[in-house]
């Protein structure tokens, strides 16, 4: 057991791409936890998808020994995800720490996610150290950025540490600051066991690995523990620390961060935020636990051609055991058959889940456009939440439809304020406040209907600001809106999976845009296909896909066979993503075309 005085538990928070993973790599390397020759980029990001996309999705952790003024400290680093979709993972990680490094890129300055993450750390009551990173870059302005951070975040810029994750510059100063400025954990090493499960990960061979922070007491292999919220007892089979691979230890004591194994079969048996205590001598101070993650975005996954509903279900079940932050339930569509209504933390989360399903579950997925949750007030006074346009009750029984609003913080260059105001107005945004961070940068706070910023808002913001703007948002409330359900008819047949709930003022415009997109996505058939958008039985937009008459390869001789066959096989693969509605083949992309409110 380590002396509490010699333990520091800390996390790093940053805007995406500010170099958090690279700095973490250097910390691992310079404390000797990972030998230089074993170093891969972004060591803590161990999901393939994370390394490919250059983002951290699941929080990871590592215990690093560091000798300072003749004493060996245990520095426990808990890595956190940077993307807005994964806020709840950030809060989870922070709750297990006493300190946090607020990392800011020396060329980019404070961004929207820096603000959101730093506020989250403040709420938890962490000690904060301002770290200005990437100071090796020619465009770095470390002093200016430190002052800006002081103004925006209220962090003392005189204590800022200047580092380069790339070259390792400033690491000694950083370690000294971690030890000097972050308080050691408090707790009673001899008290009754009180530990928090802040994350859990399935392991095919050993059952679930529970990542834990011990507050009071200690536990070891052979102890009988109780998961207090679940009310279940287990026998500990191993305790240990991540270095960064799980490494067994004798005991986990107060103040320490580590893991335990207890023969827990599936991740569904563990609730993150649960309190661990000894069955024989339980603590009477159960931890408050975590809010379960809130799904903000819903869409349906249907099996593509070549995949059955059962195969898709199996793949979803398997993935859910690994990441229970999405939800799914069975749903049926006339157009697409039996599939699953899924809830996600955000759009990126949705994309990741779809990709992991196809990659790890080896299934083909047809996905419908994402939608938000609407709250329906019925004429009888009851309220009901719907996650899909198809769930909207008959309009005669509906008193009002309420849609989710978010508060968004956008940090943008001062010269793009006009464009951002224009963009926000188009998205039915309401200005809350505008603050100048410096003469060149502005923080704009707006309330938006979530549906309006769901899909391409972030891209638009980026293009309005030449890539410099950043945004972050959190759910505010539900507000009444003049919403209508728009149906789409393909060749006279309503395609339920294409229905969408839209604001009445925007219905005609959205309908026209949607049909234009659909027209591009659906190939010409050997007959003419009318496309229609309808609200309450009234056609508000119309397009026609002309019949094709000729699609034939003129020449096909001996030298052409391989190439023509490959073309044929490519077409065949394309058809795998098609669904037939009536007698019209609709590619998967068409089901996503609802997404695109503007071009």
């Amino acid at each position, binding site marked *: 057991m380590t002396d509490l005085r010699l333990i520091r538990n800390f996390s790093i928070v940053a805007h995406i791409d500010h170099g958090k993973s690279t700095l973490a790599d250097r910390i691992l390397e310079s404390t000797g936890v990972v030998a230089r020759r074993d170093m891969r980029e972004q060591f803590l990001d161990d999901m393939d998808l994370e390394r490919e996309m250059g983002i951290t999705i699941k929080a990871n952790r590592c215990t690093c020994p560091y000798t300072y003024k003749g004493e060996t400290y245990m520095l426990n680093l808990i890595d956190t995800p940077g993307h807005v979709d994964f806020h709840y993972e950030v809060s989870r990680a922070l709750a297990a720490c006493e300190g946090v490094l607020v990392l800011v890129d020396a060329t980019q300055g404070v961004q929207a996610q820096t603000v959101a993450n730093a506020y989250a750390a403040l709420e938890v009551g962490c000690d904060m150290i301002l770290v200005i990173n990437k100071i090796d870059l020619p465009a770095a302005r470390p002093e200016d950025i430190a002052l800006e951070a002081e103004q925006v975040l209220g962090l003392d810029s005189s204590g800022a540490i200047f580092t380069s994750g790339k070259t390792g510059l400033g690491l000694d100063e950083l370690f000294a600051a971690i030890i000097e400025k972050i308080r050691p954990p408090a707790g009673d090493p001899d008290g009754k066991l009180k530990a928090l499960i802040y994350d859990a990960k399935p392991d095919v061979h050993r059952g679930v690995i529970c990542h834990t922070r011990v507050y009071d007491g200690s536990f070891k292999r052979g102890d009988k523990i109780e998961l207090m919220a679940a009310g279940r007892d287990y026998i500990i089979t191993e305790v240990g620390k991540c270095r960064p691979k799980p490494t067994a230890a004798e005991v986990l004591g107060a103040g320490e961060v580590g893991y335990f194994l207890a023969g827990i079969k599936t991740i569904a048996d563990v609730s993150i935020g649960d309190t661990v205590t000894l069955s024989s001598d339980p603590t009477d101070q159960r931890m408050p636990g975590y809010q379960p993650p809130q799904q903000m975005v819903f869409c349906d996954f249907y099996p593509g*051609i070549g995949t059955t509903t059962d195969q898709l279900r199996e793949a979803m079940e398997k993935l859910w055991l690994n990441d229970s932050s999405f939800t799914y339930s069975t749903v049926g569509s006339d157009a697409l058959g039996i599939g699953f209504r899924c809830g996600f933390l955000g759009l990126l989360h949705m994309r990741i889940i779809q990709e992991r399903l196809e990659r790890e579950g080896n299934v083909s997925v047809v996905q419908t456009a994402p939608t938000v949750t609407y709250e329906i007030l019925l004429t009888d006074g009851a309220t009901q939440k719907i996650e899909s346009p198809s769930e909207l009750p008959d309009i005669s029984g509906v008193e009002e439809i309420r849609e989710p609003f978010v508060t968004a913080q956008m940090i943008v260059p001062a010269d793009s304020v006009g464009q951002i105001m224009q963009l926000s107005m188009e998205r039915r945004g309401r200005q809350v406040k505008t603050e100048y961070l410096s003469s060149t940068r502005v923080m704009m706070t707006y309330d938006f209907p979530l549906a309006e910023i769901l899909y391409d808002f972030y891209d638009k913001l980026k293009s309005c600001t030449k890539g410099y703007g950043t945004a972050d948002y959190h759910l505010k409330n539900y507000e009444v809106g003049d919403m209508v359900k728009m149906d789409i008819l393909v060749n006279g047949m309503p395609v339920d999976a294409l229905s969408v709930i839209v604001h009445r003022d925007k219905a005609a415009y959205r309908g026209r845009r949607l049909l234009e997109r659909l027209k591009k996505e659906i190939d010409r058939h*050997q007959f003419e296909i009318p496309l229609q958008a309808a609200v309450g039985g009234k056609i508000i937009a119309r397009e026609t896909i002309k019949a*094709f*008459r*000729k*699609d*034939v*390869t*003129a*020449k*096909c*001789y*001996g*030298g052409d*066979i*391989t190439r*023509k*066959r490959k073309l*044929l*096989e490519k*077409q*065949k693969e394309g*058809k*795998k993503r098609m669904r037939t509605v009536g*007698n019209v083949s609709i590619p998967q992309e068409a089901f996503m075309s609802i997404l695109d409110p503007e071009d």
Partner: protein
Amino acid sequence: MPHAGQSTSLGIASRAGLYVHVPFCDSKCGYCDFYSVAIKDRDTSPLIDALIREIGVRVPDSGYEIQTIFFGGGTPTVIPIEQLGALLAATRDAVDLSKVVEFTVEANPATVNDAKAELLVRSGVTRVSMGAQSFIPSELASLERLHSPDDIPPSVATLRRHGIKQLNLDLIFGVPGQTLDTWRESLRRAIELKPNHIACYGLTYEPGTRLTAQRETGRLQSCDEDLEAEMFECTVEVLAAAGFHQYEISNFAKPGCECRHNLLYWRNEPYIGIGPSAAGCIHNRRYKNVSDIGGYVRMIGASGLAEIESEAIDRETLIHELVLMQLRLNEGLDLRLFRERTGVDPRELFAEPLGQLSSSGLIEWDDAAIRLTRRGRLLANHVMAELVAGSAVSGDVALPVIAA
């Protein structure tokens, strides 16, 4: 209809076609994506020597009896007469010409003179395929052809005078600026020359060609799809009235005058390919030679072969190729042959798409074959893709053993 090459799948003496690619032209046409280079002042002899060497290596080693020969390109008739003579002589040496039922050479108008025509006939050539393309000067210009419409009749006469009886004329429709009337005019002029075979190709914008680049940069406007479909339908009618029946999507012949060599491709039978960029398919393996002339000459010099790609035709590939090639033929996909070569009945394998496609009037079948309907032929790519996408292919059943 008896199938000459199907004996291969029954393990009896196997026959194959021989294709020789001569990659030279007077100039490169904007639409062409075959491998060829402008001849200019180039010394063609190293390449011809390499062709001769490859024929000498491949033909005897293959174990096949050559049944048809086709010299294509490029324009085989542009090379110097001594080299053409040497190439033809080497072919005669490697092949038992008494077993050859058809020997075709491609030519362009104004590339055949008396001496070359005489040489061809003396060397055993029985058929000439001539790239007439159009009888309208403006259309020939937009195709970047060097000849004029008036060059075509004298070239045909020269060949006839020396004894070439089997003659094909190639024509192209869907040319920018072409109308239904000008297309009818080209067809009429072609028929007037009394060939026994006419090939009519819809102009294709192949990736990487000058023509495609011109369309993409807006310098030319491609023919309207509906007009092109009308031209195609008009072709079938006009040629049928003149006694030419359609036997393949783009090929029309007087009875008994179908191109035997090309039939072999469409019936998925073996063929040996010689020359740069040429492909061959022998013993269930397809190979492709290196394209560039320099590389080809070097590789042949080193080993006698110049393959850069080779693939075994597995069962799924074979199924795709049978559909891709045989449906092009009016005789259709031969049910018995398909069963023998793949072990499954195509009517079962494609049961689902067949039902849909026949109710759309694009395909029909009986106990002998599955065929495209007249409307289906215009939408052949769509039909083929529907068939292979909707097939019930399961597992990998071993191919029936094919004798070497």
